[in-house]
Each structure stands twice: as structure tokens, then as C-alpha cells.
């Protein structure tokens, strides 16, 4: 069935709310307004204000409330509008949710799901266009997901809710309007990366909003006779390096495409692990394509120039193959 990324997220939330009375949704404008990205449209009327809770503009407060509810046996889904607002809740996420199991000797678990939009490309300017997934992927104690397909948008929420520990889900702002085929069996795990396109000559590792760009680049390259394998990380913490390394051992070349800034990026972490474990399998220096290290511009042409694009991905691959 053909559907949109937004609709797939909506269905997943609807299912969770319908199936488990412990599940509730909380966040800014999720209720009466229907969600900043309209994911929870209609839920307020259907499930009522007890389970679709509009919050004050205080991320520190309502994320903390979500942690408390999770400790108390509920299965809260907290929506933080965009990743930049989550910076206000970093103390709750990093210093409470992520560590309580450890600090209580396993007595407490925090079965909390935090959803947030991430990424640039919608002309939301420097304050609402970050790609800070790696900040969370750095923290032990939480699982970080990046659904990049309609299938993952539909399938990832259920296992995230079933996880006894906090899970942060990043929904890329450019993907909400993405349309795609929802597989008949959309159920999925939240442990493994996925090979989205098989290829033999170069591995392109990416996640989130850059996946459609990498797929488009691979399509163009295929027309030129270059077979690129595209890997969607899906899970940013803990990283599934097995899938990545299997691919690199096959293609011997790797390009990581990451919308984050290059310095201290997830792409850097992945390349470091490849260099550590796969040095002798590499037939070309591993490469990264990341966003230009500037505050994200507002002007459309400048914003586009600052982000990794399909043509740059294809060009980087050609260079690696000397093609």
C-alpha cells in the first residue's frame, strides 16, 4: 500500500494508543493543534486530553514528567518538536533517563519513547535545522533510532515501546511528506542496519534524511555502470557495525553520508571503526560527506548548498573509483 511517512507514523501511534492503555502522548501542540508536523491530527478527539496531553513550553519539565511516568509504570511517548528544543531537556535525557537503571542497580527502568524532528531542508533557519543525532548516539543507556523509510516509520514504534530502556526516535523533517510503498509486513526490529540497495563496488552508509539522496545517487551511478551498495543505519546507537563491515569487506570502499557537521560526527565514528576493524579490506581511503560547517542558512539556495546532495554523493563515489 502506498502511503506517506507522516501517515505511517500516525498509524503506528494510533495502534500503540489503541492497544496499550499505559501508552500516552505528551508534548507541545500535540493535542488541540494536532502536532507541529500534524502527526497526531485527530488524536485529541479520539483519545481525549488524558492521553493526548498538551504541555507548557518547558522541555525540561515535560520530558522529566515523562521519565517520572515511565518509572511509575506508564509507557509515555514524549514528542519534542525539534531536536534544537531537546537541548533544553538534555539534562533529563542524559543525566536521568539514561542512567537510572545503572544508578539503581537495575531496580528502575525508564521505558520512555522520545520522538523529535531533526534536520534541515525546510528553510527553518539556523535554530531549527540541526542534525544532532550524534549527540544522543554518544550516550550509553539510550537507544537511538532514525526511521528513514515508510516501513520503518510504521514499524519502529512498537519495538521502541517494548524496550524497557529509553529510546529516542529522530524523524527527519524532510521525510514527513515522503511517499512510499508500505510493505505488507512492516514489522521490524530495532537492532540491525538495512541494506537498502545491493551493490558491489562501493558502500554508501547513511541514515535518516540522507537516505533518499543516497538512493538517488546510487540510481544515477548505476546508469553509469557503478554499483553502489546503500546501507541505512536505522539504529544510531548501538551501531550495527556487522552489517556495515560485511558490506565493506565486499566492496572495499566506503563513503559515509551524514547530515551532521563533520567535526565530531557520527560519520567520523563509523569511519574510525571501519579503519580499526577493516583497514586491510580497504581499497581506497574511506570518505565522508557531511554538511558544511556553518550555521544552517535560511536562504533556500544556500541551505541546499550547505547540505549533502545526491550529485555530491555520486561525485564522491566517482572520485573513489577514479571513474
Amino acid at each position: 500500500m502506498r502511503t506517506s511517512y507522516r501517515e505511517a507514523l500516525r498509524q503506528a501511534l494510533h495502534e500503540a494508543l489503541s492497544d496499550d492503555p499505559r501508552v500516552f502522548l505528551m508534548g507541545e501542540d500535540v493535542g488541540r493543534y494536532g502536532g507541529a508536523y500534524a502527526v497526531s491530527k485527530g488524536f485529541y478527539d479520539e483519545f481525549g486530553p488524558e492521553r493526548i496531553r498538551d504541555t507548557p513550553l518547558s522541555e525540561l519539565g515535560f520530558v522529566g514528567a515523562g521519565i517520572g511516568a515511565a518509572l511509575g509504570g506508564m509507557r509515555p511517548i514524549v514528542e519534542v518538536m525539534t531536536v534544537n528544543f531537546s537541548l533544553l531537556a538534555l539534562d533529563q535525557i542524559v543525566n536521568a533517563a539514561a542512567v537510572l537503571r545503572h544508578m539503581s542497580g537495575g531496580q528502575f527502568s525508564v521505558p520512555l519513547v522520545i520522538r523529535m524532528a531533526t534536520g534541515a531542508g525546510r528553510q527553518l533557519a539556523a535554530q531549527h535545522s540541526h542534525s544532532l543525532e550524534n549527540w544522543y548516539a554518544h550516550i550509553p543507556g539510550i537507544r537511538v533510532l532514525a526511521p528513514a523509510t515508510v516501513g520503518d516509520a510504521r514499524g519502529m514504534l512498537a519495538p521502541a515501546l517494548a524496550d524497557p530502556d529509553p529510546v529516542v526516535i529522530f524523524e527527519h523533517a524532510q521525510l514527513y511528506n515522503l511517499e512510499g510503498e508500505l510493505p505488507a509486513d512492516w514489522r521490524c526490529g530495532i537492532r540491525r542496519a538495512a541494506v537498502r540497495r545491493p551493490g558491489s563496488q562501493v558502500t554508501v552508509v547513511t541514515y535518516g534524511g540522507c537516505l533518499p539522496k543516497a538512493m538517488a545517487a546510487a540510481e544515477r551511478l548505476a546508469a553509469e555502470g557503478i554499483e553502489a551498495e546503500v546501507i541505512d543505519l536505522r539504529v544510531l546507537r548501538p551501531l550495527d557495525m556487522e552489517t556495515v563491515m560485511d558490506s565493506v569487506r565486499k566492496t572495499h570502499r566506503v563513503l559515509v553520508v551524514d547530515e551532521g557537521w563533520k567535526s565530531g560526527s557520527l560519520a567520523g565514528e563509523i569511519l574510525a571503526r571501519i579503519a580499526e576493524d577493516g583497514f586491510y579490506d580497504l581499497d581506497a581511503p574511506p570518505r565522508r560527506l557531511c554538511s558544511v560547517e556553518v550555521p544552517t542558512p535560511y536562504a533556500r539556495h544556500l541551505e541546499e548548498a550547505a547540505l549533502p546532495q545526491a550529485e555530491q554523493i555520486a561525485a564522491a563515489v566517482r572520485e573513489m573509483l577514479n571513474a
Partner: protein
Amino acid sequence: MLDFKLPSLGSDMDEGTLLEWKVKPGDPVKKGQVVAVVDTSKAAVDVEIWSPGRVHELLVEIGEKIPVGTVLMTVLEPGETAPPPAERKAVPAAGRRRISPAARKHAESLSVDVEKLAGSGPGGAVTLADVDRAAAARPAEKPPAAAIRQAEMRRAIAAAMGRSKREIPHYYLSETVPMARAQDWLTQANAGRPLSARLLMAAVQLKAVAAALKKYPEMNGFFRDGAFQPAAAAHIGVAISLRQGGLIAPAIHDVGDKTLDEVMGDLADLVKRVRSGSLKSSEMSDPTITVTNLGDQGVEAVYGVIYPPQVALVGFGRIAPRPWADNGALAVMPTVTASLAADHRVSDGHRGALFLAKLRECLQAPENL
């Protein structure tokens, strides 16, 4: 600053392939030092430099095929300092060659010499594909590689010998030389020697040729540009047949000025190095006359083809006991047929005959050689 050019390593050589550099920029070099190894159609040859100095810049890459006369490297003369960088030509980036880790590992597992491969990757890096290509080329090439080399050598010999017979008006002379005195003397000389230090008749014959050349220098030298250029010393090319077919005739230098023991040592060394394929450029280009010796396995006499631009070739057949008239009676005498093929543009039969007679005479007094 000197330009060091690829020398001609024999008249049949037009080009060579650089196999190895033995020096790098900044290395001091001295006269006679081996600086590179070049593959000719006949053998891998160590190329020597004849001017002292310091290597400035290597201009040819390993694996490149280059014509004779190509500047291989520039050399700073003693006392000369490097020109300021502004005047220098673009130098390929120094440092380690770009070989991908996977290519290096793969090459090791396939026993491919990765350092000798040309790279097709970004920045000229050697990649897995380059190693695979080299490995794939190898089995198909291994038996044929020897065949190709043989074919090349055949072509080289054909070119040189064809040219010789087209250009050089040969005349041939031969003389039967009694060898009893030489054999007796050799037996005596070898009596007190360990096996490894024993002299061979071939060395005695070489010394005898050198002695005869002193008196008849028109057999020793080159015919070039329509004129004979006599050589000051006798650098005798020794024809050595190769196991895989073909032959090569590198020089033993200054045979006339060396002792018999030295010549013997040089001969043994040369044969060993021909078989292992490590000859020096001077040995390839310097012979002023060639001696071919059929030895024990040979036939009675050999009438050779002169190796241009040389002007003479001396042949020795098999030494064997033969009927010999001595003081009116028939006796048995070990003899050898010494022959001379000479260039009629340079010498006449009369002088050639005197040369052979002198050679015979020299072999009757081996103790004087």
C-alpha cells in the same frame, strides 16, 4: 648538473624497461656504481654510472619502457648544489607509494609484487583491481612469459646477426692447434689447487686470444661510421648459451692485463651471473671481440658470425686426441681447431692468418700467459 641517459646495452638494443632503481635522490654515486636495473630483450642488466656525484632527481618510473638515450636521472656533480626549487621541474609527490591496504594484503596472498604494479586508483593508487589484473595476467603469462622472452631473444639475435651478415664482409680462417703442452701445463698447474680454484682451458684460451690481440690490434675494436676504431684494451665477450635457449656474450674486461687466475675468476662469476640474470651494463656494451668456445660437448670447428659493431670473432672447437704427423711419424695429439671470422673492411686474410698463427704460438707457451 649531468643528465644520466639510458646507455645502449648492445647494438641490438633500442629500448629497455626500467625494473628497479638502486639509488634515490640525495644518494652519492661513484664511478662504476650500479644505479638501476633495466630489462633489455635479452636480460635484466645492472646499469652503471661513470661519473661521480649526487643523485638529484629520478625521471623515469619503474615499469616504464624507454628508448636508448632517454634521461633516466639528473646527477649533481661533486661540489655542485641543487638549483633553487623555482627552476626545478615538477617532481612527483615524494613519500610512500599509494597502495591500498586491501591491495597490499591481496597481493601478498597471491605473491604478486605490489611495488611493481602501476596504479589505476585515485592519485595513482594501486588497487585490488590492479592486483587482480596482475595475478590474472600471470598464470596466462608464466609459461608464455618464458616463451615471450625466448621469442624476444630470438628476435634480438636475428636482428644482430642479420645486420652482421648484411653489413660485414666476413672472411674465415682456421688452424689446428696442438694442445699437448697446454694440457700438460694445466694439469700441473691444477695439481696443487683445491677443486674450487682450478683453472679451465677456456680461461687459458681467452688469455691466449688477448695476447695475440696485443700484436694484431685490428681484430679488436669497433667498426662505426665507416671507420675502424681500435680498442685500447681487450674486453673479450664470452658467448654463453642460456638454458632456456638463446645466447648472450658479456665481456670480461681487460683480459690482457689480468692474470690467468683473475680471468678464471671473472669467467666463473660471469657464467653464474648470466644464469641468474644479473649482468652489468658495461659487460653488455663493452665487448671489443667475441670468443665462442664449443668446449667438450662441441664439434670440431666453429665459424662464427661477428657481433656488430665488433670486427672479429674467434672460435674454438672441441679439444680431442687426433692423428698428428710429428717428425715424419704418425702420432696421437690432442688438438683444437681455432677459427677466426673477421671483418674484411678492417683486416685482410694475411693479417688474420698471422693472428691465428700467433694464437697457436701463445698456446704452446701457456706458462707465459
